[in-house]
């Protein structure tokens, strides 16, 4: 089994990053905040993720906090506040 999580991006984030999905390796204890820091370390435009408090997080399609640990095979989603209806 792969040791990666899939990260999905939606709406404004998907356009800013020009990516709708990517895979990142995880180790025991990796949190969503760790994943965001790893992405931000890639430089522009990824560094916009670091410190953006408006970014919402879902893990396996349930809302989550940055401190949530993730495991291989999880689906993590990052997106702006929702505006449907």
């Amino acid at each position, binding site marked *: 089994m792969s040791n990666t999580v899939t990260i999905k991006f*939606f709406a404004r984030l998907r356009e800013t990053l020009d990516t709708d999905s990517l895979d990142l390796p995880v180790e025991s204890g990796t949190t969503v905040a760790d994943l965001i820091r790893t992405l931000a370390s890639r430089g522009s435009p990824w560094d916009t993720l670091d410190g953006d408090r408006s970014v919402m997080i879902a893990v396996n399609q349930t809302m989550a906090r940055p401190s949530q640990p993730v495991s291989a095979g999880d689906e993590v*989603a990052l*997106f702006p506040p929702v*505006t*449907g*209806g």
Partner: protein
Amino acid sequence: MIRIQTEDFEIGRETDALADDGQSGAIATFTGLVRASGDRQDVRALFLEHYPGMTESVIEDLIAQASERWSINAVRVIHRVGELALGERIVFVGVTSAHRGDAFAACEFLMDALKTSAPFWKKEITADGTSHWVEQKDSDRRKADDWQAG
């Protein structure tokens, strides 16, 4: 019953589909439309994106919350995605209940909660051809929070 779709819907047909065998004395419905002025003026269309899978489970959870708070019988939620022109229908929420109070309240709760919890995003396309993602409104946030408080 939850549907996420690009196609239009008919209010009358969806309302009729909520009618049942005499247990309900009330049907409350809400329909949301695309209007010309939102965050920007001269809006000529909206583009709606969602998170397939999570959208449906969030709405199912909101319906479960509504069912715990009010005595309701049937619920239909329809939300369109893709590009929608001015005046087009975006969203439909319909609730049946024995009494109108529960039907009105559950319908309003579902609509308010949907606007801040369900993973849909709107982009306004203006007459000059540019497009801008709609920002979440504090007023929508407050309406959803008020249901939690009250």
